[in-house]
C-alpha cells in the first residue's frame, strides 16, 4: 500500500503536465485541479479551436445550459480528425461522455439518439468498447428494455480485446450482470410456475437452464474481492430454491469472513438472515452478530443480539447485553429511540434479578462514560425535548438514577426553558 516511490513519481508527472508555463517556480506539492488541456507550444490552430470548443462545452454543461452545450457539441467531434494517435482514445471517451450527458438533459433526446451515440462510440475504438457497452446496457435496463440489454450483454460477452485489469473487470461485470438478468428471467418463470397448478416439466427445465447460466458466472464473480450484494442475494436465492444449502452457506461465509473482502456489514447481515431462515442455533446466530457488532456497534441487529443474549440467562451474556445497548446509545441515531432505552431498562432489570452487586457492575460499565454521558443524555434541554414523548422520558429518568447517580444535572422538563447550560460536563448547581 505504501508505494511511495510510485506515488511521488506520479506526483512529479502530474506536476510536469500541469505547469509547464510556470517557469522557475517551485512546484506546489499538491497537484492542483483537473487536467484541462492547456495551451501547448506545439499547438496548431486546429488544436486550439477544439480546445476552446471543449472549454465552452464544459462551461455550458457545468452551468446546465444544455442547449448551448449541444450547439457546441455539434462541432466538437471534429477533434477526431486529429492525427495524433495517442490522444484519440481520450477524445473518444470525452465525446462519448459529453454527448451522453447532454442527451440526458436535452429535451429532444430520443432513445435512437442514445443508441446512435453508444453504438458509434463503441465501435469507434476498441479501448472503450466494454465500458460503453456496459453503460449502454445500463441505459437500456433503466428504460425498461431488458431484452435489448440482454442482447447487449451477450454481444460483448465474447469480446476478447484488451488484457489489462480494467478490461478484465469489465468482462466480469458484464457476465455478472448478464447472469443477473438470467436470474430475473428465472424469477419470472418461478413466479408463473408457482401459479400453474400442474407441474410443467418444460418450465422447470427452462428454469434450471437459466439457473445454470446464472450460477456459472455468479460463482465466478463472488470469488473476486468486492461488494457483490445483488449478485450474492440472487445467487443464494437460487441455490436455496434448488436446496443446495452447503454451497449457499459457503458462499455467504466466504463473503462475510474472507479477509480480502472489504468489511461489508451486509455480508454479515445476509449470513445472519440465511441462518435465521435455516433455523440455526442461537449460539450460531449470536456468533455472527458478535462479529457484526465488532464492525458496526450501532447496527440495528444489535437489538436482536441483545435480546438473544438476554435469553441465554448467563450472567456474562447479560453483562454483554448491557455493553451492547450502552454502545448503541452512544450513537447519535439511537439516542432518542424508545426501544433501545426500554431494552436497556430490561437488561438492567434482569441484572437486578440475577446479580447482587449489579450496581457496581453497571457503574463499572459506565465508568468510561461518566464524564460525557450525562451531558449527552440527561441535561434539562434533553428533558424538554423528550417531554413530547413522556414514555421515553419516564424510562430515561428512571435509568438516570442508575446510570449516573452522582450527576448533578437536572433531567426534568421544567428546567428546559431555563438558560442554565453546562460546559462539557462542568458541574453546576
Amino acid at each position, binding site marked *: *500500500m505504501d*508505494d511511495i516511490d*510510485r506515488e511521488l513519481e*506520479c*506526483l512529479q508527472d*502530474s506536476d510536469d503536465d500541469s505547469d509547464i508555463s510556470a517557469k522557475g*517556480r517551485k512546484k506546489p*506539492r499538491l497537484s*492542483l485541479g*483537473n487536467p484541462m488541456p492547456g495551451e501547448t507550444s506545439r499547438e496548431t490552430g486546429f488544436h486550439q479551436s477544439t480546445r476552446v470548443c471543449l472549454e465552452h462545452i464544459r462551461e455550458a*454543461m*457545468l452551468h*446546465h445550459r*444544455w*442547449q448551448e452545450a*449541444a*450547439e457546441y457539441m455539434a462541432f466538437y*467531434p471534429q477533434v*477526431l480528425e486529429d492525427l495524433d494517435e495517442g490522444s484519440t482514445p481520450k477524445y473518444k471517451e*470525452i465525446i462519448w*461522455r*459529453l454527448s*451522453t*450527458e447532454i442527451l*440526458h438533459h436535452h*429535451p*429532444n433526446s430520443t432513445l435512437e439518439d442514445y443508441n446512435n*451515440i453508444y453504438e*458509434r462510440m463503441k465501435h469507434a475504438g476498441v479501448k472503450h468498447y466494454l465500458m460503453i457497452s456496459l*453503460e449502454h446496457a*445500463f441505459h437500456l435496463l*433503466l428504460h425498461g428494455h*431488458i431484452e435489448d440489454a440482454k442482447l447487449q450483454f451477450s454481444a460483448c460477452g465474447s469480446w476478447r480485446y484488451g488484457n489489462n485489469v480494467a478490461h478484465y*473487470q469489465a468482462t466480469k*461485470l458484464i457476465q*455478472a450482470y448478464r447472469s443477473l438478468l438470467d436470474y*430475473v428471467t428465472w424469477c*419470472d418463470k418461478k413466479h*408463473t410456475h408457482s401459479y400453474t397448478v400442474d407441474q410443467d416439466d418444460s418450465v422447470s427445465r427452462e428454469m434450471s437452464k437459466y439457473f445454470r447460466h446464472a450460477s456459472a458466472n455468479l460463482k465466478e464473480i463472488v470469488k473476486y*474481492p468486492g*461488494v457483490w*450484494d445483488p*449478485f450474492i442475494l440472487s445467487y443464494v436465492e437460487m441455490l436455496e430454491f434448488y436446496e443446495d444449502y452447503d454451497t449457499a452457506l459457503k458462499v455467504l461465509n466466504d463473503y462475510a469472513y474472507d479477509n*480480502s473482502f472489504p468489511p*461489508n456489514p*451486509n455480508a454479515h447481515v445476509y449470513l445472519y438472515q440465511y441462518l435465521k431462515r435455516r433455523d440455526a442455533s442461537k449460539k450460531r446466530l449470536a456468533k455472527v452478530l458478535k462479529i457484526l457488532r465488532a464492525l458496526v456497534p*450501532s*447496527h*440495528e441487529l444489535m437489538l436482536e443480539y441483545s435480546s438473544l443474549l438476554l435469553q441465554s440467562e448467563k450472567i456474562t451474556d447479560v453483562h454483554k447485553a448491557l455493553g451492547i445497548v450502552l454502545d448503541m446509545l*452512544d*450513537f447519535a441515531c439511537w439516542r432518542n*429511540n424508545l426501544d433501545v432505552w426500554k431494552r436497556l431498562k430490561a437488561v438492567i432489570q434482569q441484572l437486578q434479578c440475577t446479580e447482587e452487586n449489579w450496581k457496581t457492575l453497571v457503574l463499572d460499565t459506565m465508568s468510561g462514560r461518566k464524564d*460525557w454521558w450525562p451531558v*449527552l443524555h440527561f441535561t434539562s*434541554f434533553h428533558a424538554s425535548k423528550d417531554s413530547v414523548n413522556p414514555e421515553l422520558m419516564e424510562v430515561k429518568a428512571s435509568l438516570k438514577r442508575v446510570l449516573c447517580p452522582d450527576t448533578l444535572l437536572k433531567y426534568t422538563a421544567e428546567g428546559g426553558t431555563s*438558560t442554565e*447550560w453546562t*460546559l*462539557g*460536563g462542568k458541574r453546576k448547581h
Partner: protein
Amino acid sequence: MDYKFPDQLFPSFYERGPPDKVLNHCAGNWGSYDKLTIQDDSGSRSNWTFTSRHQVKGETWRHTEPVPLPLLSPLNEFLWPTKPPNPLDFMDHMQNFFLDHRHDAFGCMSQILGENFNFTQGTKEKRHKDSISMWRVTRYLDGLSFKKCRLRDRSVPLNRYSALLGDVVHAIPPQLLGSLLYEELAEQGERLLFSEAATGGALEFIPFSHNGDGYLVYPGNQGLNRLKFHRVELQRHRGSHSVLRSSSSDSFSFHLNGPIRQISSASLFNNSCVAVRSDYLCGVWRFSGGGEQPRLLQAVNTTEVATCVTASPHVLGEVLVASESGVVNLWTVGRGMQKVRGEDGNLYFNAESPWRWCDFSAHPRVMVYADRTGAELTDIRVSPVSARSLFSISRSSDCHRGERLVLSRYLRDVHSFHHLVTTQFSSYIVDERFPGVPVLKWDHMMESPPLFCHVLPGSASSGSVVGGAGTTKVVLGSQRSQELVLLQYSGGGATACSSRGPPLALLRPSTSLKHLPVQIPHRLDVATHRLSSSAAGLTCVQRTGGEGVEDECICVLQLTEAGDVFYQILEPQQQQIHIPDVEPQPMPSKPVASSSPSSQLFTENDVIGTTQKERQTFADSDESEDGGQRRRRLKQLKLQVVVNQPDEDEDDDDDDDEDDDPGTQEKDGEQSDSTEKEALCSSMSVVNISEDALVTWKRWLQKLMKKSRKKKKKPRPPGSQLFTADTEGFLRLRRKETREDKHVRSLRRDLRTCMSKRSLLAFSAPTLQPLPQAVDTDTWTDPLSRRLTISWQGEAAWRAWWEEELGLNRAEKEMALRRKRTREKERKRAAGRLELSGSFTSSTTYQAELDSFSDSAGWTSGSQCAWSDTDGLEDTVGGITPVPTTTVSPLKTVEGEYEPQTPSRSHDVSVSQTPSRSHDVSVSQTPNRSRDVSVSQTPSRSHDVSVWQTPNRSRNVSVSQTPSRSRDVSVSQTPNRSCDVSVSQMNDTPAARRASVRPAEGDHTSVLASQVKPLLSHHNVVEDNSGVRSPQSVSQQSVPQRDVRVNLSLDSAVWSGFFQSRPLSQSSRGHVGLSQSSQSSQAKKKKPRMGF
C-alpha cells in the same frame, strides 16, 4: 432513520494498493451510470426496478439573479497581488529594500565608515583630515538612475571601493538575504495558488430558527483578524425573490491576535458554540438563543501551527484541535487539553505534508484523524489508539494518481454516519459503518481543490417536486478560483447512496462584472481586482418550505479574502415554468421544428458522417455564425431570445427542403414547440438581473471607488529610463506669463458670458505640426538637375526641355512670347479697373445695409477668433480687410454660386466686439503660431480698429495685394456688421437667407455659417498666391467643410458664434473636420510639390 443500513450496495471490485489510474480527460464521470442494483418491487411478476448509482435527474435549482450580490458594503480597501510573485524577481525586491530602507541595509557600516568619507565638495578641511573625497563618486551615482552605457560610463574609484567594501557594508549579507527572499517569494506564490491554512473556511452561519434568521460569523476586516457576529435574515417578499438582509445594529466584533483561518460551529438545543482557529491561537465563543451577545469562553495559544479546529456536535464545549506537529487534542473548554492522537508521519504513505485534520464522528468518543493520504477513525477511549481506516488514497477508493485528501467533513445532522471527503478531483461520501470503501463518488469538475464545503440536508418538500425524498446538497467551494459547485445525492438510509444529476457550477463574484453595466476602465480594474480575490469561506442558509415549495430557497454565501461576503439565492425550479412574455413571433406559416437548428444538428449528425441535409444545416449554421454570436450577445443583454425562432435567410435557402415537411410539422409544431420551449427554458435558465440587484451593485461599486480613491497608494515611481537634458526654459518666450494671464482672463470672461448666454464655449483645435520645408527644385540650377526635375513630368516635358535646350523651338517660342505679351497687356488694363471699383462699391453697400441693422441687432459683446488654425497658417487673417485680390478670380469661375467678389473676406474672424455699443473692433493677430492668439478684445471704447498683424506674415500676399490695402479701408468698413451683411448677401444657402431677414441672433448664425466658406476659400487662394497650386482643387476641397459648418451653426439653437474666444471651432465636430480638412488639403498641396 439514520441507523438503517442499505439492504444492497452497488456492486464494485475491491482492490488494495496504490492508485494507478491516470486522470487524462476533463469530462469526469459525465454520462455514465456507474453501477446498477436491482430490486424486486412487489414480488409480482416483471416488476423489477433498476437503480443506478448515478441518477440522471436531480432537483433543479435555479438562480434568482445571474450575479451574486454583495451582502455588506465594502469596508476596506484591500490590495493584494492577484498574480503570484515570481521568485526570480528577488533581485528587484532586494534593490527596493536597499533603496527604501538604506539605513537598515547599510546602517552599521556606514556609521563606522562614514567619518572617513567626505561626500560634499570642498569641505574637506571641516572633516576628518584623512577623509577621502567622494563627491565625484556621488556625482556618478546620481547619474546611475538613468540608463546609460555601462561599459562607457564607468567610475574607476567606485569600482575600487565596491571591490574593497562590497562584502562588508551590508548589514545582512546579500547572499543570505537573497536566498531567504527567494524562498519567501516562492512560498508566497504557492500560498496564493493554494493555501492549506484556509481549509474549512472562515464563514459560518448559525441559525436561530428555521426561517433563515441567525448570526453570520466571519472575519470582517482587512487583516481578517476581527471576528464578527453579524445578524442576517433571509427575507421573503411576496411576489419577488428572497433577499438576505443584514441588520446594521446587531453585530458584535472581537479583535484577535492573528488572521482567522477557520470557523467551526456547533449548535445544540438553541445553544451555539463557535470555535475559531488562527495560526497560533484558538478560541471558543458561545451564545444562546436568538441574538444574545456572544461571549468568549476560552482562548488558548498553541505552540505549533494549528491546522484544524472542530466543535463537537455531541457535547457542547468539546473542541478538537489538530496541529502541524501531528497531534490532535481534545479541548474541553474550561478543563484543558487532552492529547488524543499523535502521528509523526503521514498515515498511509509519505506525502510530505504536515497538514492534519480532525473531525468528530457518530460516536462522541471516536474521532476522525486525517491527513493528505487518508482518514482514520480513532477511538480515543483506549490508550494505545485503535484506529480503523475510513478512507485512504488507494485503489479501494478508486483514486487517481497524485490525488490527495483536501478536506474531510462529518455530515452531522445530514446523516450521522456519513463523512464527506474531497480531493482535488473528486468528492466522496464515506459511511463509517463500512469504512474503506466510499459509498459514493463524484467528479466535482473544479479547477482548483475544494477547500470549503457546506452540506444541506434534503427537505421533504423539495423532494416532492422530483418525487421521493429530497436530495442532500453538497456545496463545494474552492479558494483561488472562487468556484462553487453544487452536488446532489440521495439515499444512505434504507437505500444505497446515489448521486443525482450532474454537478452544477454556481456563480462566482469574479465573473459578475460581465453582467453589470460597463464600467470605465480604471474603475473596472479596481473592481475586477477586488472581486477576484481568493475565496476564504463558504456557508449556506437554507429555508425549508413551511408553506410549500415556493417558500423554499438556499442562499449560498461566499467570503473573499478582501472581507467581502457575496450571496446568491437558489430556488427550486417550479414545475410550471413561467415563460416571459417575449414570445417568439408567431410565424405559423413557417415550420418551427425544422429550424431548431442546434438540437437537431446535434442529434442528427452526432459524430461521424453527414448526410446531405445535415451538411446543409452545417453550412447554414456556419453562415449564420454571426447570427449565433448576436443571439448570444443579446442573451447577455438580457433579451429573451428563443432559439427556436427560424432564421429568415435560412428559410430562403431551404425553401425547397422545407416545403416537404411544413404541412405535417406545422400542426404539431406549435404544440410541441411550446412544450419544447418550456423544457428549453428550464434548461437554459436565462435569468435577468433585477433592478434591485443592479442598484445594490451600483452602490457597492460606488463605495468601493470612494474607498479606493481615498487610500490610493502610489507605487514606486519608475526611474526615468534615459538620461535627458533639462530643456525647460530654453525656448520660452519672455512675454509668456503676461500673455497667458491675459489669455486666462479673456477665457474667464468669455466663459462667464457664455454661461450667461447659456451657450457653448469653443476651444482651440490641436496644434498642427509645421510641415518640413518643401523641396524647392527651382534652386537647383544646373542643367542636370533641371533635366531630371523635368523628367518627372513625363516624356513630353522632357522632350520639350531638350528641344529648348538645344534651341530647336526657338522661333516658335518667340512667336508665342510675343502673342502672350500683347494679351497680358490688354488684360491687365481691363481687369485692374474693373475689380477695384467692384470691390469698393460692394463693400460700401454692405456697410450701408449693415448700418440699418445695427440698432435692432442687439449686438452683444464677443470676440470672434481668428481662424488661424485653418491651414496651420497662423497668419491667415487679413483682419477685416476686404481682400478682393486678383487671385480670387479663378475661383470665381469655378464656383460661380459663391460670388467670389465678396470683399468681405470676413473670415477674418479676429473681429471682436466690445459689449459696449461702440463699433470697436480689435483685430489682433499674434505672432505666435498658436491658434488662440487672435482673440483679443479691445479695451478701448473708441471707434478705432486696431489691427495687429504680425510683421512677418509670410503668406500675407493677399493683404498686400488688396487694392484697398490700407487699414483705413478696414476701418471704414466697420467691422462685423459689414461681415454680416456681406455674408448674408453673398451666401446663397437658405439658412443664410432666412437669417438675413431676421435680425438678432439669427444673423449671427447665418454669418457664422456663411463665413466658413469664404474663409476657407480665401485661405486657399492666398496659399495659391504663393504660386504653387491650382485654385480649383482647393476650392473644391473647401466646399464640404462649408457644409459642415453650416449645418453646425444651424443646429445650435442659440449660436453665439461671435463669442467664441477661440477659433470658432467648438462644437468640436465641425471644428475637427475643418482642421482635418485643412490639414489634408495641405497635405495634398504638398504632394505635387514634392513631386516636382
